[in-house]
Protein backbone atom coordinates (compact mmCIF):
# COMPACT_ATOMS: atom_id res chain seq x y z
CA UNK A 1 0.00 0.00 0.00
CA UNK A 2 1.10 3.53 -0.68
CA UNK A 3 1.72 5.92 2.17
CA UNK A 4 -1.39 7.97 1.39
CA UNK A 5 -3.50 4.80 1.58
CA UNK A 6 -2.35 4.45 5.19
CA UNK A 7 -3.17 8.07 5.80
CA UNK A 8 -6.66 7.74 4.34
CA UNK A 9 -7.29 4.56 6.33
CA UNK A 10 -6.06 6.24 9.49
CA UNK A 11 -8.33 9.23 8.91
CA UNK A 12 -11.28 6.95 8.19
CA UNK A 13 -10.66 5.00 11.38
CA UNK A 14 -10.39 8.20 13.46
CA UNK A 15 -13.51 9.70 11.85
CA UNK A 16 -15.26 6.35 12.30
CA UNK A 17 -14.44 6.27 16.00
CA UNK A 18 -15.64 9.84 16.44
CA UNK A 19 -18.82 9.22 14.45
CA UNK A 20 -19.38 5.97 16.35
CA UNK A 21 -19.27 7.78 19.67
CA UNK A 22 -21.58 10.52 18.40
CA UNK A 23 -23.93 7.93 16.87
CA UNK A 24 -24.08 6.07 20.15
CA UNK A 25 -24.82 9.27 22.06
CA UNK A 26 -27.50 10.40 19.63
CA UNK A 27 -29.17 6.98 19.56
CA UNK A 28 -29.12 6.79 23.34
CA UNK A 29 -30.29 10.39 23.80
CA UNK A 30 -33.73 10.83 25.34
CA UNK A 31 -35.79 13.80 26.28
CA UNK A 32 -35.74 14.55 29.99
CA UNK A 33 -37.17 16.77 32.66
CA UNK A 34 -35.15 17.77 35.72
CA UNK A 35 -37.07 19.18 38.65
CA UNK A 36 -40.44 20.85 38.73
CA UNK A 37 -41.92 24.22 39.56
CA UNK A 38 -45.18 24.73 41.33
CA UNK A 39 -46.07 28.31 42.19
CA UNK A 40 -49.81 27.87 41.80
CA UNK A 41 -50.26 28.11 45.56
CA UNK A 42 -48.33 31.38 45.69
CA UNK A 43 -51.22 33.58 44.62
CA UNK A 44 -53.41 33.17 47.66
CA UNK A 45 -53.04 32.17 51.28
CA UNK A 46 -55.35 30.34 53.63
CA UNK A 47 -54.88 32.73 56.52
CA UNK A 48 -53.38 36.17 56.78
CA UNK A 49 -49.68 36.03 57.52
CA UNK A 50 -47.32 38.88 56.74
CA UNK A 51 -43.69 38.97 57.70
CA UNK A 52 -40.86 41.23 56.70
CA UNK A 53 -37.55 42.42 58.01
CA UNK A 54 -38.51 46.08 57.96
CA UNK A 55 -41.30 48.61 57.68
CA UNK A 56 -40.89 52.05 56.15
CA UNK A 57 -43.51 54.74 56.66
CA UNK A 58 -44.14 57.29 53.94
CA UNK A 59 -45.37 60.80 54.46
CA UNK A 60 -47.28 62.57 51.73
CA UNK A 61 -45.77 66.01 51.28
CA UNK A 62 -49.20 67.48 50.55
CA UNK A 63 -50.75 65.95 53.66
CA UNK A 64 -50.89 68.39 56.56
CA UNK A 65 -52.13 65.84 59.13
CA UNK A 66 -48.61 64.62 59.91
CA UNK A 67 -49.69 61.11 58.98
CA UNK A 68 -47.08 58.50 58.16
CA UNK A 69 -48.30 55.34 56.51
CA UNK A 70 -47.11 52.00 55.22
CA UNK A 71 -49.32 50.35 52.61
CA UNK A 72 -48.88 46.96 51.08
CA UNK A 73 -50.88 44.81 48.69
CA UNK A 74 -50.65 41.16 49.65
CA UNK A 75 -51.97 37.86 48.40
CA UNK A 76 -55.67 37.36 48.77
CA UNK A 77 -56.85 35.34 51.75
CA UNK A 78 -59.11 32.49 50.74
CA UNK A 79 -61.73 32.15 53.44
CA UNK A 80 -61.73 35.05 55.86
CA UNK A 81 -65.18 35.61 57.31
CA UNK A 82 -65.33 37.89 60.31
CA UNK A 83 -69.09 37.42 60.64
CA UNK A 84 -69.06 33.67 61.11
CA UNK A 85 -65.63 32.97 62.58
CA UNK A 86 -63.58 34.29 65.46
CA UNK A 87 -60.06 35.54 64.96
CA UNK A 88 -57.19 36.87 66.97
CA UNK A 89 -54.56 39.27 65.70
CA UNK A 90 -50.93 38.73 66.67
CA UNK A 91 -48.12 41.17 66.06
CA UNK A 92 -44.63 39.85 66.84
CA UNK A 93 -45.97 37.43 69.50
CA UNK A 94 -48.14 40.16 71.06
CA UNK A 95 -51.84 39.39 70.94
CA UNK A 96 -53.67 42.56 69.95
CA UNK A 97 -56.68 42.47 72.21
CA UNK A 98 -59.60 44.69 71.38
CA UNK A 99 -59.14 44.25 67.64
CA UNK A 100 -62.21 45.11 65.61
CA UNK A 101 -63.08 42.16 63.40
CA UNK A 102 -65.58 42.94 60.66
CA UNK A 103 -66.93 40.79 57.85
CA UNK A 104 -63.95 41.38 55.57
CA UNK A 105 -61.61 43.57 57.54
CA UNK A 106 -59.60 43.82 60.72
CA UNK A 107 -58.63 46.96 62.62
CA UNK A 108 -56.27 47.13 65.56
CA UNK A 109 -54.49 49.81 67.52
CA UNK A 110 -51.01 49.25 68.88
CA UNK A 111 -49.49 51.37 71.62
CA UNK A 112 -45.79 51.04 72.21
CA UNK A 113 -43.53 52.81 74.70
CA UNK A 114 -39.81 53.14 74.03
CA UNK A 115 -37.47 53.52 77.00
CA UNK A 116 -33.98 54.94 77.20
CA UNK A 117 -31.20 53.34 79.25
CA UNK A 118 -32.37 55.22 82.37
CA UNK A 119 -35.80 53.68 82.08
CA UNK A 120 -37.47 56.88 80.93
CA UNK A 121 -39.97 56.87 78.10
CA UNK A 122 -38.39 58.56 75.07
CA UNK A 123 -41.25 57.95 72.69
CA UNK A 124 -44.83 56.82 72.94
CA UNK A 125 -46.05 55.49 69.60
CA UNK A 126 -49.53 54.62 68.49
CA UNK A 127 -49.99 52.66 65.30
CA UNK A 128 -53.26 51.75 63.62
CA UNK A 129 -53.39 48.49 61.70
CA UNK A 130 -55.93 47.98 58.96
CA UNK A 131 -56.28 44.75 57.00
CA UNK A 132 -58.84 44.64 54.20
CA UNK A 133 -59.60 41.26 52.69
CA UNK A 134 -60.60 41.99 49.10
CA UNK A 135 -61.64 39.58 46.35
CA UNK A 136 -58.31 39.72 44.53
CA UNK A 137 -55.85 40.88 47.17
CA UNK A 138 -55.36 41.83 50.79
CA UNK A 139 -54.51 45.41 51.68
CA UNK A 140 -52.42 46.04 54.73
CA UNK A 141 -52.08 49.58 56.05
CA UNK A 142 -50.09 50.73 59.07
CA UNK A 143 -50.57 54.34 60.09
CA UNK A 144 -48.96 56.46 62.76
CA UNK A 145 -48.84 60.16 63.51
CA UNK A 146 -45.67 62.19 63.70
CA UNK A 147 -42.20 61.66 62.34
CA UNK A 148 -40.78 60.70 65.72
CA UNK A 149 -43.32 57.94 66.20
CA UNK A 150 -42.75 56.68 62.66
CA UNK A 151 -38.98 56.69 63.14
CA UNK A 152 -39.12 54.72 66.40
CA UNK A 153 -41.52 52.18 64.92
CA UNK A 154 -39.25 51.79 61.90
CA UNK A 155 -36.34 51.20 64.24
CA UNK A 156 -38.35 48.63 66.21
CA UNK A 157 -39.33 46.72 63.07
CA UNK A 158 -35.79 46.95 61.75
CA UNK A 159 -34.53 45.38 65.01
CA UNK A 160 -37.27 42.78 65.41
CA UNK A 161 -38.89 42.40 62.01
CA UNK A 162 -42.64 42.33 61.62
CA UNK A 163 -44.76 39.21 61.88
CA UNK A 164 -48.43 39.99 61.65
CA UNK A 165 -50.95 37.15 61.72
CA UNK A 166 -54.71 36.84 61.83
CA UNK A 167 -55.47 33.43 63.25
CA UNK A 168 -58.84 31.76 63.37
CA UNK A 169 -59.86 30.67 66.86
CA UNK A 170 -61.15 27.14 66.54
Amino acid at each position, binding site marked *: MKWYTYLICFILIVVGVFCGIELYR*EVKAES*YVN*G*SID*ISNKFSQESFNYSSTSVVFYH*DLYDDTDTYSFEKDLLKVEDFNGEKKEYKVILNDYVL*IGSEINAGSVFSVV*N*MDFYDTNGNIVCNSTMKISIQFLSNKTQLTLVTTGQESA*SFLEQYFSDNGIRLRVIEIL
Partner: protein
Amino acid sequence: MKTLKVIGNCCFVFLAIIGLCVSLAYGYYHFFVKDITTGTNYIDNQIALDIVASDDLTEEQKNEFEERYFMEANFFSNAKNNGIALQELKFNYFTDYSLSSNAYRSTGMQYLGDLKQSDLVITETTEQEAQRYESSAFSYYDTTNGVSWEGNKLRTQLNRESAFTIKIDNRAFQIQLTGTYEWTTYKRSWWSLWLYNQPITNILYYNYLNVFADCMEAIRTNNQGYGDYYITVDLSEYFTIREYDMSSGKYKEDNVTDIIKNYSVLKFHYDENGARNSTQSLFGIIDCNPSYDIVEEEIDTTYWQERMVYTLDEDDFSYRYSDVYQGYFFSLNMDTKKMFDEMPRAKVNINIDLNSQYFKDKNITVVGLDYNAFEGFEIDTLTIKGNTQKIYLLKKSLYDTQLQTFKYSNGLTFDIAQNAINNEYSEVVL
Protein backbone atom coordinates in the same frame (compact mmCIF):
# COMPACT_ATOMS: atom_id res chain seq x y z
CA MET B 1 6.97 -11.32 7.70
CA LYS B 2 5.35 -10.45 4.43
CA THR B 3 2.31 -12.47 5.41
CA LEU B 4 2.04 -10.55 8.69
CA LYS B 5 2.28 -7.27 6.78
CA VAL B 6 -0.50 -8.36 4.43
CA ILE B 7 -2.65 -9.39 7.37
CA GLY B 8 -1.93 -6.10 9.11
CA ASN B 9 -2.79 -4.12 6.00
CA CYS B 10 -6.00 -6.06 5.58
CA CYS B 11 -6.99 -5.38 9.17
CA PHE B 12 -6.14 -1.73 8.73
CA VAL B 13 -8.23 -1.49 5.56
CA PHE B 14 -11.00 -3.45 7.25
CA LEU B 15 -11.05 -1.05 10.16
CA ALA B 16 -11.04 1.87 7.71
CA ILE B 17 -14.03 0.34 5.92
CA ILE B 18 -15.83 -0.11 9.24
CA GLY B 19 -14.95 3.49 10.08
CA LEU B 20 -16.39 4.60 6.76
CA CYS B 21 -19.54 2.58 7.36
CA VAL B 22 -19.95 4.00 10.84
CA SER B 23 -19.41 7.50 9.47
CA LEU B 24 -22.03 6.95 6.81
CA ALA B 25 -24.38 5.42 9.34
CA TYR B 26 -23.88 8.43 11.61
CA GLY B 27 -24.46 10.86 8.73
CA TYR B 28 -27.60 9.03 7.69
CA TYR B 29 -28.93 8.85 11.23
CA HIS B 30 -28.03 12.42 12.05
CA PHE B 31 -29.57 13.97 8.96
CA PHE B 32 -32.43 11.64 8.04
CA VAL B 33 -33.51 9.53 11.01
CA LYS B 34 -32.80 11.43 14.17
CA ASP B 35 -35.79 12.62 16.22
CA ILE B 36 -35.76 15.80 18.22
CA THR B 37 -34.97 15.48 21.92
CA THR B 38 -35.72 18.14 24.49
CA GLY B 39 -34.32 18.68 27.94
CA THR B 40 -36.07 20.83 30.52
CA ASN B 41 -34.55 22.07 33.76
CA TYR B 42 -36.80 23.63 36.37
CA ILE B 43 -35.04 25.64 39.06
CA ASP B 44 -37.27 25.74 42.09
CA ASN B 45 -36.66 26.39 45.76
CA GLN B 46 -33.01 26.26 46.84
CA ILE B 47 -33.47 25.07 50.42
CA ALA B 48 -30.55 23.00 51.64
CA LEU B 49 -31.01 19.25 51.85
CA ASP B 50 -30.15 19.19 55.55
CA ILE B 51 -32.91 21.69 56.34
CA VAL B 52 -35.51 19.80 54.35
CA ALA B 53 -34.57 16.55 56.07
CA SER B 54 -33.95 17.97 59.53
CA ASP B 55 -36.01 16.55 62.39
CA ASP B 56 -34.58 19.07 64.85
CA LEU B 57 -36.33 22.04 63.29
CA THR B 58 -39.89 22.88 64.19
CA GLU B 59 -42.43 23.53 61.46
CA GLU B 60 -42.23 27.24 62.29
CA GLN B 61 -38.46 27.24 61.88
CA LYS B 62 -38.78 25.33 58.63
CA ASN B 63 -41.26 27.93 57.42
CA GLU B 64 -38.68 30.60 58.11
CA PHE B 65 -36.26 28.79 55.84
CA GLU B 66 -38.98 27.83 53.41
CA GLU B 67 -38.29 30.24 50.64
CA ARG B 68 -34.95 30.51 48.99
CA TYR B 69 -35.41 30.87 45.29
CA PHE B 70 -32.51 31.05 42.88
CA MET B 71 -33.56 34.52 41.77
CA GLU B 72 -35.07 37.21 43.94
CA ALA B 73 -35.72 40.78 42.87
CA ASN B 74 -36.71 44.04 44.47
CA PHE B 75 -38.08 46.86 42.35
CA PHE B 76 -39.05 50.25 43.77
CA SER B 77 -40.51 52.08 40.79
CA ASN B 78 -40.91 55.43 42.60
CA ALA B 79 -44.19 56.01 40.74
CA LYS B 80 -45.37 58.05 43.74
CA ASN B 81 -42.21 60.09 43.61
CA ASN B 82 -41.57 59.67 47.33
CA GLY B 83 -38.12 58.13 47.26
CA ILE B 84 -35.63 56.85 44.72
CA ALA B 85 -36.07 54.28 41.97
CA LEU B 86 -34.19 51.16 43.02
CA GLN B 87 -33.74 47.78 41.33
CA GLU B 88 -32.07 44.75 42.85
CA LEU B 89 -31.48 41.17 41.77
CA LYS B 90 -30.15 38.44 44.02
CA PHE B 91 -28.96 34.94 43.19
CA ASN B 92 -29.21 32.27 45.89
CA TYR B 93 -26.99 29.28 45.31
CA PHE B 94 -24.57 26.83 46.93
CA THR B 95 -20.82 26.94 46.98
CA ASP B 96 -20.44 23.18 46.50
CA TYR B 97 -22.29 20.08 45.46
CA SER B 98 -23.10 19.03 49.04
CA LEU B 99 -26.21 21.27 48.82
CA SER B 100 -26.11 21.79 52.57
CA SER B 101 -26.96 24.97 54.46
CA ASN B 102 -23.26 25.40 55.22
CA ALA B 103 -22.75 25.92 51.51
CA TYR B 104 -25.31 28.73 51.20
CA ARG B 105 -24.20 31.81 49.36
CA SER B 106 -26.01 34.71 47.74
CA THR B 107 -24.72 37.34 45.40
CA GLY B 108 -26.65 40.37 44.28
CA MET B 109 -26.53 43.43 42.11
CA GLN B 110 -28.18 46.77 42.72
CA TYR B 111 -29.06 49.62 40.39
CA LEU B 112 -30.10 53.08 41.50
CA GLY B 113 -32.61 54.11 38.88
CA ASP B 114 -35.06 52.49 36.52
CA LEU B 115 -33.06 50.43 34.05
CA LYS B 116 -34.98 49.33 30.98
CA GLN B 117 -33.98 46.83 28.33
CA SER B 118 -34.29 49.60 25.74
CA ASP B 119 -31.56 51.53 27.56
CA LEU B 120 -29.02 48.88 26.67
CA VAL B 121 -26.94 49.36 23.55
CA ILE B 122 -26.28 46.21 21.55
CA THR B 123 -22.64 46.24 20.54
CA GLU B 124 -20.36 43.48 19.48
CA THR B 125 -18.00 42.13 22.11
CA THR B 126 -15.13 39.75 21.93
CA GLU B 127 -15.29 36.65 24.07
CA GLN B 128 -12.11 37.62 25.86
CA GLU B 129 -13.38 41.02 27.01
CA ALA B 130 -16.82 39.64 27.81
CA GLN B 131 -15.70 36.83 30.10
CA ARG B 132 -14.70 38.99 33.06
CA TYR B 133 -16.86 41.99 32.31
CA GLU B 134 -18.88 43.34 35.20
CA SER B 135 -20.91 46.50 34.64
CA SER B 136 -19.70 49.40 36.76
CA ALA B 137 -23.21 50.90 36.86
CA PHE B 138 -24.12 48.48 39.63
CA SER B 139 -23.26 47.91 43.26
CA TYR B 140 -22.55 44.27 44.07
CA TYR B 141 -23.01 42.45 47.37
CA ASP B 142 -22.31 39.02 48.76
CA THR B 143 -23.36 36.98 51.79
CA THR B 144 -23.19 33.47 53.17
CA ASN B 145 -25.75 33.75 55.95
CA GLY B 146 -28.25 36.14 54.37
CA VAL B 147 -27.79 38.58 57.24
CA SER B 148 -24.39 40.24 56.85
CA TRP B 149 -23.71 41.53 53.37
CA GLU B 150 -20.50 42.93 52.03
CA GLY B 151 -19.43 44.49 48.78
CA ASN B 152 -16.20 45.50 47.09
CA LYS B 153 -13.48 43.17 45.87
CA LEU B 154 -13.71 40.15 48.15
CA ARG B 155 -17.00 38.92 46.86
CA THR B 156 -18.24 36.64 44.12
CA GLN B 157 -17.88 38.29 40.75
CA LEU B 158 -21.00 38.33 38.61
CA ASN B 159 -19.47 37.67 35.23
CA ARG B 160 -19.46 34.93 32.61
CA GLU B 161 -16.76 33.00 34.43
CA SER B 162 -18.95 32.61 37.53
CA ALA B 163 -20.57 29.20 37.82
CA PHE B 164 -23.06 28.62 40.61
CA THR B 165 -24.10 25.32 42.14
CA ILE B 166 -27.86 24.95 42.38
CA LYS B 167 -30.28 22.27 43.45
CA ILE B 168 -32.68 20.58 41.04
CA ASP B 169 -34.55 17.46 42.13
CA ASN B 170 -32.28 17.36 45.20
CA ARG B 171 -29.30 16.87 42.89
CA ALA B 172 -26.42 19.23 42.24
CA PHE B 173 -26.27 21.18 39.02
CA GLN B 174 -24.14 24.05 37.88
CA ILE B 175 -25.47 27.12 36.15
CA GLN B 176 -23.33 29.53 34.18
CA LEU B 177 -24.00 32.51 31.98
CA THR B 178 -22.86 31.41 28.51
CA GLY B 179 -25.47 32.81 26.14
CA THR B 180 -24.72 34.90 23.08
CA TYR B 181 -26.73 36.96 20.67
CA GLU B 182 -25.70 36.84 17.04
CA TRP B 183 -26.75 39.06 14.20
CA THR B 184 -25.57 39.62 10.66
CA THR B 185 -24.52 42.85 9.04
CA TYR B 186 -23.42 43.32 5.43
CA LYS B 187 -20.41 45.08 4.10
CA ARG B 188 -19.71 45.99 0.49
CA SER B 189 -16.39 44.59 -0.69
CA TRP B 190 -13.96 46.54 -2.81
CA TRP B 191 -12.77 43.45 -4.60
CA SER B 192 -16.27 42.97 -6.05
CA LEU B 193 -16.29 46.59 -7.10
CA TRP B 194 -18.66 47.29 -4.21
CA LEU B 195 -21.35 45.13 -5.79
CA TYR B 196 -21.26 42.26 -3.32
CA ASN B 197 -22.55 42.55 0.23
CA GLN B 198 -20.34 40.40 2.35
CA PRO B 199 -22.22 39.01 5.40
CA ILE B 200 -20.47 39.55 8.72
CA THR B 201 -21.59 37.73 11.86
CA ASN B 202 -21.57 39.88 15.00
CA ILE B 203 -21.66 38.33 18.43
CA LEU B 204 -22.81 39.85 21.69
CA TYR B 205 -21.71 37.84 24.69
CA TYR B 206 -24.42 38.37 27.26
CA ASN B 207 -23.45 39.65 30.67
CA TYR B 208 -25.40 40.03 33.91
CA LEU B 209 -26.51 43.49 32.87
CA ASN B 210 -28.66 41.85 30.17
CA VAL B 211 -30.06 39.31 32.62
CA PHE B 212 -30.82 42.07 35.12
CA ALA B 213 -32.60 44.28 32.58
CA ASP B 214 -34.72 41.36 31.34
CA CYS B 215 -35.73 40.38 34.87
CA MET B 216 -36.79 43.96 35.62
CA GLU B 217 -38.75 44.02 32.37
CA ALA B 218 -40.50 40.81 33.40
CA ILE B 219 -41.45 42.37 36.73
CA ARG B 220 -42.56 45.62 35.14
CA THR B 221 -44.89 43.75 32.78
CA ASN B 222 -46.38 41.29 35.28
CA ASN B 223 -50.17 41.29 35.24
CA GLN B 224 -50.60 41.36 39.03
CA GLY B 225 -49.02 44.80 39.29
CA TYR B 226 -47.44 46.00 42.50
CA GLY B 227 -46.91 43.55 45.34
CA ASP B 228 -44.98 40.40 46.21
CA TYR B 229 -45.35 37.74 43.57
CA TYR B 230 -43.66 34.87 41.79
CA ILE B 231 -43.16 34.34 38.09
CA THR B 232 -41.37 31.68 36.08
CA VAL B 233 -38.78 33.09 33.73
CA ASP B 234 -37.13 31.33 30.79
CA LEU B 235 -33.36 31.54 31.20
CA SER B 236 -32.53 29.31 28.23
CA GLU B 237 -31.13 32.18 26.19
CA TYR B 238 -28.68 33.14 28.90
CA PHE B 239 -27.64 30.21 31.05
CA THR B 240 -26.22 26.74 30.55
CA ILE B 241 -26.94 24.10 33.15
CA ARG B 242 -24.63 21.18 33.81
CA GLU B 243 -25.47 18.17 35.93
CA TYR B 244 -23.06 16.90 38.53
CA ASP B 245 -21.95 13.34 37.79
CA MET B 246 -21.42 11.54 41.09
CA SER B 247 -19.26 8.82 39.56
CA SER B 248 -16.80 11.11 37.80
CA GLY B 249 -17.09 14.05 40.18
CA LYS B 250 -17.54 16.43 37.26
CA TYR B 251 -20.23 18.74 35.98
CA LYS B 252 -21.20 17.57 32.52
CA GLU B 253 -22.73 19.75 29.88
CA ASP B 254 -25.53 18.32 27.79
CA ASN B 255 -24.45 18.79 24.18
CA VAL B 256 -26.57 15.99 22.69
CA THR B 257 -30.12 17.15 23.40
CA ASP B 258 -31.45 19.34 20.62
CA ILE B 259 -33.50 21.81 22.61
CA ILE B 260 -32.68 22.62 26.22
CA LYS B 261 -34.97 24.88 28.21
CA ASN B 262 -34.08 26.31 31.60
CA TYR B 263 -36.84 27.77 33.73
CA SER B 264 -36.50 29.42 37.10
CA VAL B 265 -38.84 30.93 39.66
CA LEU B 266 -38.28 34.65 40.09
CA LYS B 267 -39.60 35.91 43.40
CA PHE B 268 -40.03 39.65 43.44
CA HIS B 269 -41.25 42.67 45.31
CA TYR B 270 -42.59 45.39 43.03
CA ASP B 271 -43.37 48.64 44.78
CA GLU B 272 -45.21 51.76 43.72
CA ASN B 273 -43.17 53.78 46.20
CA GLY B 274 -39.62 54.83 45.89
CA ALA B 275 -37.01 53.36 48.21
CA ARG B 276 -36.48 55.55 51.24
CA ASN B 277 -33.83 53.88 53.30
CA SER B 278 -31.40 50.99 53.27
CA THR B 279 -33.66 48.66 55.31
CA GLN B 280 -35.80 48.29 52.17
CA SER B 281 -32.94 46.82 50.19
CA LEU B 282 -32.51 43.08 49.76
CA PHE B 283 -29.01 43.64 51.04
CA GLY B 284 -29.72 46.19 53.78
CA ILE B 285 -27.44 48.55 51.87
CA ILE B 286 -28.10 51.18 49.24
CA ASP B 287 -25.28 52.59 47.17
CA CYS B 288 -22.77 50.78 49.42
CA ASN B 289 -24.15 52.75 52.37
CA PRO B 290 -25.86 50.74 55.15
CA SER B 291 -27.23 53.98 56.68
CA TYR B 292 -28.68 55.31 53.48
CA ASP B 293 -31.78 57.46 54.01
CA ILE B 294 -33.29 60.18 51.87
CA VAL B 295 -34.58 61.98 54.96
CA GLU B 296 -31.91 64.52 55.79
CA GLU B 297 -32.90 65.34 59.37
CA GLU B 298 -32.88 61.98 61.04
CA ILE B 299 -34.39 61.48 64.46
CA ASP B 300 -32.28 59.72 67.06
CA THR B 301 -34.14 56.45 67.58
CA THR B 302 -31.74 54.90 70.04
CA TYR B 303 -33.64 53.07 72.75
CA TRP B 304 -33.05 50.42 75.36
CA GLN B 305 -36.31 48.55 75.39
CA GLU B 306 -39.78 48.73 74.00
CA ARG B 307 -42.96 47.71 75.77
CA MET B 308 -46.31 47.05 74.19
CA VAL B 309 -48.94 49.00 76.09
CA TYR B 310 -52.28 47.35 76.80
CA THR B 311 -55.28 49.00 78.36
CA LEU B 312 -57.78 46.63 79.90
CA ASP B 313 -61.27 47.94 80.55
CA GLU B 314 -64.62 46.77 81.86
CA ASP B 315 -65.25 43.99 79.37
CA ASP B 316 -61.88 42.32 79.97
CA PHE B 317 -62.68 41.14 83.51
CA SER B 318 -64.70 38.55 85.40
CA TYR B 319 -67.31 39.63 87.93
CA ARG B 320 -68.49 37.93 91.13
CA TYR B 321 -71.56 39.03 93.05
CA SER B 322 -71.26 39.36 96.83
CA ASP B 323 -74.34 39.26 99.02
CA VAL B 324 -72.34 40.71 101.89
CA TYR B 325 -71.21 43.81 100.01
CA GLN B 326 -74.33 43.99 97.80
CA GLY B 327 -72.34 44.37 94.62
CA TYR B 328 -69.84 42.91 92.19
CA PHE B 329 -66.13 42.38 92.62
CA PHE B 330 -63.99 42.24 89.50
CA SER B 331 -60.89 40.20 88.83
CA LEU B 332 -58.70 39.08 85.96
CA ASN B 333 -59.82 35.85 84.39
CA MET B 334 -57.34 33.01 84.00
CA ASP B 335 -57.31 33.08 80.20
CA THR B 336 -56.29 36.73 80.11
CA LYS B 337 -53.66 36.13 82.80
CA LYS B 338 -52.26 33.18 80.90
CA MET B 339 -52.17 35.19 77.68
CA PHE B 340 -50.16 37.96 79.33
CA ASP B 341 -47.81 35.44 80.93
CA GLU B 342 -46.67 34.65 77.39
CA MET B 343 -46.00 38.35 76.68
CA PRO B 344 -43.44 39.36 79.30
CA ARG B 345 -42.76 42.78 77.77
CA ALA B 346 -46.41 43.84 77.90
CA LYS B 347 -47.17 46.95 79.93
CA VAL B 348 -50.72 46.78 81.24
CA ASN B 349 -52.93 49.65 82.34
CA ILE B 350 -56.37 49.08 83.80
CA ASN B 351 -59.22 51.53 83.30
CA ILE B 352 -62.50 51.04 85.09
CA ASP B 353 -65.31 53.54 84.73
CA LEU B 354 -68.03 52.69 87.24
CA ASN B 355 -70.55 54.72 85.24
CA SER B 356 -69.73 53.10 81.90
CA GLN B 357 -72.39 51.96 79.49
CA TYR B 358 -71.06 48.43 79.82
CA PHE B 359 -72.04 48.27 83.51
CA LYS B 360 -75.39 49.93 82.84
CA ASP B 361 -76.23 47.42 80.11
CA LYS B 362 -75.25 44.47 82.28
CA ASN B 363 -76.78 45.99 85.42
CA ILE B 364 -73.52 45.58 87.34
CA THR B 365 -72.69 47.61 90.42
CA VAL B 366 -68.99 47.30 91.14
CA VAL B 367 -67.94 47.49 94.74
CA GLY B 368 -64.30 46.54 94.53
CA LEU B 369 -61.43 44.26 93.54
CA ASP B 370 -61.90 40.60 94.39
CA TYR B 371 -59.62 38.36 96.45
CA ASN B 372 -56.40 37.73 94.49
CA ALA B 373 -57.94 39.70 91.64
CA PHE B 374 -54.61 40.63 90.03
CA GLU B 375 -52.13 38.78 92.22
CA GLY B 376 -48.82 38.29 90.44
CA PHE B 377 -49.99 40.25 87.40
CA GLU B 378 -47.84 43.29 86.59
CA ILE B 379 -49.86 46.51 86.34
CA ASP B 380 -48.47 49.90 85.45
CA THR B 381 -51.45 52.17 86.08
CA LEU B 382 -54.81 51.41 87.67
CA THR B 383 -57.51 53.99 87.01
CA ILE B 384 -60.93 53.89 88.63
CA LYS B 385 -63.47 56.55 87.76
CA GLY B 386 -66.79 57.01 89.46
CA ASN B 387 -69.01 59.09 91.70
CA THR B 388 -69.08 59.12 95.49
CA GLN B 389 -68.66 55.50 96.49
CA LYS B 390 -66.62 53.17 98.67
CA ILE B 391 -64.42 50.67 96.85
CA TYR B 392 -63.13 47.56 98.61
CA LEU B 393 -59.74 46.12 97.80
CA LEU B 394 -59.92 42.61 99.18
CA LYS B 395 -57.02 40.45 100.33
CA LYS B 396 -54.16 40.17 97.83
CA SER B 397 -56.21 41.88 95.16
CA LEU B 398 -53.15 43.87 94.02
CA TYR B 399 -50.48 41.67 95.60
CA ASP B 400 -47.24 41.35 93.60
CA THR B 401 -48.59 43.58 90.85
CA GLN B 402 -45.75 46.16 91.06
CA LEU B 403 -48.43 48.82 90.59
CA GLN B 404 -46.78 52.14 89.71
CA THR B 405 -49.67 54.59 89.67
CA PHE B 406 -53.15 54.50 91.14
CA LYS B 407 -55.56 57.07 89.70
CA TYR B 408 -59.05 57.53 91.01
CA SER B 409 -61.89 60.02 91.01
CA ASN B 410 -62.18 62.54 93.78
CA GLY B 411 -65.41 61.13 95.25
CA LEU B 412 -64.12 57.57 95.64
CA THR B 413 -62.97 56.24 98.99
CA PHE B 414 -61.13 52.98 99.51
CA ASP B 415 -61.28 50.24 102.08
CA ILE B 416 -58.00 48.46 101.54
CA ALA B 417 -57.39 45.08 103.17
CA GLN B 418 -54.11 44.80 105.08
CA ASN B 419 -52.24 42.75 102.48
CA ALA B 420 -54.16 43.84 99.43
CA ILE B 421 -51.00 45.34 97.96
CA ASN B 422 -47.32 44.94 98.85
CA ASN B 423 -45.51 47.71 97.02
CA GLU B 424 -45.36 51.47 97.07
CA TYR B 425 -47.18 53.39 94.39
CA SER B 426 -48.06 56.96 93.56
CA GLU B 427 -51.61 58.18 93.85
CA VAL B 428 -53.28 60.63 91.50
CA VAL B 429 -56.68 62.06 92.30
CA LEU B 430 -58.61 62.86 89.15
